[in-house]
């Protein structure tokens, strides 16, 4: 074993010196660097994004209940050293002098919020200061809106229940407030210790009890897992993702894209490594063949091969992990400034993953050859049968393909994405193979024509080169194809994703909601819109209803397992009506009603709601509207873009159906800067109108999307570098053989021009086919991923197809020729000695 180790070490050094390892190690280091850097980076960005988002609920996790939260939750948190704080939210009236106003009271403990901070000031227009504490005993903080409505200033007293409390600050910003944009009453924040004295919470009061928790992601995740099974009726656990749906969508998409980029980098790096392993395998097999001839035992040879494999894997793993670490430091440095908090520290996991990948890939490449050598006699080896027998070419790539599949599944962490990537890669390989065979046939035909012109003869020779190296050409083209395809795929998706985010919240997106508009006030509100030149502001009717039964079966939510379904079914629906479907809705099943169907008892539901409640087209739903029953038949399902900040409805009926019921109206619009005063005038004129300002919330969402866009750009650039590396590896994979051929051609009198033309012709074919297949594949895959996985619209990009085919058909032969050019200037004799 010691002898084997010594021989393995000296042979590895020799192979390195001979240059047989350089490209392989380069690709392997790159693969490991890609895996670790992307893994490091995405991990840190992801946790940073989660942290950023945690600010929005004031903690990392929230336990919510409609009754006092059992002490067990807080005790469990205490045993795990998790920070906790309790909040209580409910609606109540407050009185100031002669005026009273419905407010949303939030009573908090002194350590609220656990994450992020509140902004308070002395008057509504104050810039304010950040604090991470609650109001003192006997004090309250109120929203600017409440100050205006009650004409209250800092220092004034407010009657809250049985207690008179002093307004000590104006609450300018409360990040966790954004979550429920339909919290139409203004906020009043008080100290939880004052709550009992107000006597506002009585038996039967509707209170939202909340226990906020904060700790490391691992501990929080463990807590969440442990606590979930103990939840009783009316209790639930929210993390940032389900607490803030508009952030959730963006976060999920960003995470999916980062995962996709990481996966792509890994696949690409593996392809690069496979391509560049060919010269190494050839050289090391020759060495082992000789050793077998000199009488070395089979086992010793295999031991040497194993040790050598591990030496290369460990060395490359170490170097790759180091480069990966440095690369992510750079990325984190750039990205760090984008985040409010500093990026969380790195963990050791990505390094381990990098090492595992390095060993996995090396073993996958070497294993088939070791297997092959096992049964070879010394005579077989002398005759160099090693490279042709007994394993077929396809079988040689099997372990590598398996490792790649495992890596794809592991990286994608999404069955659909992994399977679609694998299917795409296989389809791509088959298409490339088809093209190569077609071209081979063409080459055969050309052979019989044998043109007179020497240029045409050289081109002919070049195209025949494809046939001469059928196996290698196919592998090479698949390499090019994959490199190009992922570059294009990421370009397409990244562009769509970022554009989609920007489009979902354009500058003119609604920043105010007005609710409680009474039918008689619609004209005045519309007049306000026209005098303020507010475009694109529609007023929607709204009737509150409760779902009673489906197809004559009573809705019994107690028996339901799905928390979301329970919540959806228990809450009151806002039924609306419309003649035309809203432009940001999309029909996914059934049909929209005709004009002749207005007044018919039909209903259109949001797709997600219908799925959660298992409602199908044609189902009969019985609603209770203020005590009156109304049965409606489901005619269509719609997909709704909730993150557009526009008023949207789960349930819509045709006009005329809800005429007999009392309705209020809602509108969302973009209030231009400077128009705040006239809006205040409108509210003073009609005090029942409630205006909800979501500008701050939108700013938050925009900020997060902006940061995620930038994170995506960084990871995209990294994947791009790996993509280029795979192209390079594909180029060098066959260089040795091509140099040999070019040299012999020159010995037989081919001019450098002839050799160059043949070479360029062959690579132009390779470039053209690769780019054509890649761009078509990339568009299909981008379509699939956009529509089915990321849920963003997709546009076929024809110009990208044309451009990439042209560029690849020019650049690939150019790059290949540049690689060969240096050999064309060396006298053939010197090259003959080396081939």
């Amino acid at each position, binding site marked *: 074993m010691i002898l084997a180790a010594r021989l393995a070490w000296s042979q590895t050094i020799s192979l390195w010196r001979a240059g047989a390892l350089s490209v392989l190690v380069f690709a392997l280091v790159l693969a490991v660097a890609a895996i670790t850097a992307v893994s490091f980076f995405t991990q840190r960005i992801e946790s940073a994004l989660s942290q950023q988002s945690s600010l929005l609920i004031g903690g990392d996790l929230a336990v919510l209940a409609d009754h006092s939260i059992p002490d067990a939750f807080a005790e469990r948190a205490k045993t795990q050293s998790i920070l906790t704080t309790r909040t209580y939210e409910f609606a109540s009236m407050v009185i100031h002098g002669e005026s009273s106003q419905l407010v949303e009271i939030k009573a908090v403990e002194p350590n609220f919020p656990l994450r992020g901070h509140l902004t308070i000031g002395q008057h509504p227009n104050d810039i304010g200061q950040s604090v991470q504490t609650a109001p003192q005993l006997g004090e309250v903080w109120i929203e600017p809106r409440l100050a205006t409505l009650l004409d209250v200033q800092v220092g004034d007293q407010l009657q809250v229940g049985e207690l008179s409390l002093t307004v000590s600050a104006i609450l300018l910003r409360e990040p966790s407030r954004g979550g429920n944009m339909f919290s139409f009453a203004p906020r009043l924040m008080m100290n939880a210790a004052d709550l009992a004295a107000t006597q506002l919470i009585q038996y039967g009061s509707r209170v939202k009890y909340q226990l906020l928790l904060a700790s490391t992601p691992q501990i929080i995740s463990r807590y969440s897992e442990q606590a979930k099974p103990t939840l009783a009726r009316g209790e639930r656990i929210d993390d940032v993702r389900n607490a803030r749906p508009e952030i959730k969508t963006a976060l999920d998409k960003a995470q999916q894209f980062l995962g996709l980029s990481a996966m792509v980098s890994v696949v690409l790096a593996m392809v690069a490594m496979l391509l560049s392993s060919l010269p190494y395998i050839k050289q090391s097999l020759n060495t082992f063949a000789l050793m077998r001839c000199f009488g070395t035992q089979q086992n010793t040879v295999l031991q040497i091969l194993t040790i050598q494999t591990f030496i290369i894997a460990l060395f490359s793993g170490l170097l790759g992990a180091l480069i990966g670490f440095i690369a992510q430091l750079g990325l984190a440095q750039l990205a760090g400034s984008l985040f409010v908090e500093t990026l969380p520290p790195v963990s050791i996991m990505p390094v381990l993953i990098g090492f595992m990948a390095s060993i996995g890939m090396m073993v996958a490449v070497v294993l088939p050859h070791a297997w092959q050598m096992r049964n070879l006699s010394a005579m077989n080896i002398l005759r160099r049968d090693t490279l042709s027998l007994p394993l077929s070419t396809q079988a040689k790539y099997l372990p590598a393909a398996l490792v790649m599949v495992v890596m794809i599944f592991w990286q994608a962490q999404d069955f659909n994405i992994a399977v679609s990537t694998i299917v795409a890669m296989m389809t791509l390989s088959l298409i490339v193979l088809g093209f190569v065979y077609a071209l081979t046939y063409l080459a055969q035909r050309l052979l019989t024509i044998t043109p007179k012109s020497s240029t045409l003869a050289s081109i002919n020779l070049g195209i025949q080169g494809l046939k001469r190296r059928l196996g290698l050409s196919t592998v090479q083209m698949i390499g090019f194809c994959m490199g190009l395809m992922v570059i294009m795929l990421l370009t397409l998706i990244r562009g769509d994703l970022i554009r989609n985010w920007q489009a979902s919240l354009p500058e003119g997106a609604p920043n105010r909601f007005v609710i409680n508009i009474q039918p008689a006030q619609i004209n005045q509100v519309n007049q306000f819109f026209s005098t303020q030149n507010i475009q694109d502001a529609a007023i929607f009717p709204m009737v509150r209803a409760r779902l009673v039964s489906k197809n004559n079966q009573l809705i019994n939510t107690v028996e339901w397992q799905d928390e979301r379904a329970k919540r959806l079914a228990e809450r009151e629906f806002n039924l609306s009506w419309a003649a035309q479907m809203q432009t940001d809705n999309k029909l996914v099943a059934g049909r929209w009603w005709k004009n002749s169907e207005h007044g018919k008892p039909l209903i259109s539901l949001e797709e997600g709601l219908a799925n959660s409640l298992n409602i199908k087209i044609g189902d009969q739903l019985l609603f209770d509207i203020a005590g009156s029953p109304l049965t409606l038949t489901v005619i269509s399902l719609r997909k709704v873009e909730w993150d557009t900040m526009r008023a949207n409805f789960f349930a819509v009926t045709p006009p005329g159906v809800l005429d007999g019921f009392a309705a209020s109206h809602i509108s969302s619009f973009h209030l231009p800067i400077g128009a705040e005063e006239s809006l205040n005038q409108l509210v003073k004129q009609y005090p029942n109108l409630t205006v909800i300002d979501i500008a701050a919330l939108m700013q938050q969402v925009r900020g997060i999307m902006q940061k995620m866009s930038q994170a995506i750009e960084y990871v995209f650039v990294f994947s791009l570098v790996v993509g280029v590396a795979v192209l390079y590896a594909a180029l060098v994979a066959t260089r040795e053989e091509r140099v040999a051929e070019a040299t*012999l051609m020159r010995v037989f*009198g081919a*001019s450098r021009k002839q050799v160059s033309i043949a070479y360029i012709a062959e690579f132009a074919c390779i470039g053209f086919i690769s780019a054509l297949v890649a761009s078509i594949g990339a568009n299909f895959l981008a379509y699939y991923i956009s529509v089915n996985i990321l849920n963003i619209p997709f546009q076929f990009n024809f110009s990208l197809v044309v451009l990439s085919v042209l560029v690849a058909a020019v650049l690939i032969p150019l790059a290949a020729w540049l690689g060969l050019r240096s050999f064309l200037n060396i006298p053939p004799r010197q090259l003959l000695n080396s081939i």
Partner: protein
Amino acid sequence: MQQSPMIQAQDLHYEITNHDNQIRILSGLNLSVANGDQIAIIGSSGSGKSTLLSLLAGLDVPTSGSVQISGGEFSSLSEDGRAAIRAKDMGFVFQSFQLLPALTALENVMLPLQLKSHPKAEVLSIEALARVGLSHRVQHYPKQLSGGEQQRVAIARAFATQPSILFADEPTGNLDSTTGQMIIELLFKMNKEAGTTLVLVTHDITLANRCKRLFKLEHGVLLEMAQV
């Protein structure tokens, strides 16, 4: 009018630099080979035989001195200029066969003809393979052929272009004696039929004696020897 020699080398010098040491391979070598002549160059390993052959064939350029082919300047031509003359006038047989592994026997023979855009590349190649007795092996790849068969493919390739000069560098060096003998018979038979000028490099004195003239390369200088 006196006909120019087919190959004329004058005052050929060839030096290489290795680790700052100047190593002199050829020093002031002169050689004249008439059209249709057959010469053998012998010498010990490392004496510079193959280097001389590659200079005569224009595969490399001398440090100083000149090579003329058919009275025309050759060694001072550009790389492509020399290639054009090789394509027109020269054929090669190497010790290590130098067949391209990805090409069949037929494709290997066709390669130099295709480079010249020869309209009958395939027909001529099949004929050449028939002449070396390999009609039944045209679609085989080099690794499916024995060493002797591979060298016969190389000979077929060398003669397929009907060259004026054939350079053979240790053509039997990689073969056993029986096979080597067969190859030599074939080579000389075809050379005689085609009337080709032959430059043979070998360390095998018996083989060298088959040629009309015999030279020994020693210390960078060529000495013509009487047939032994």
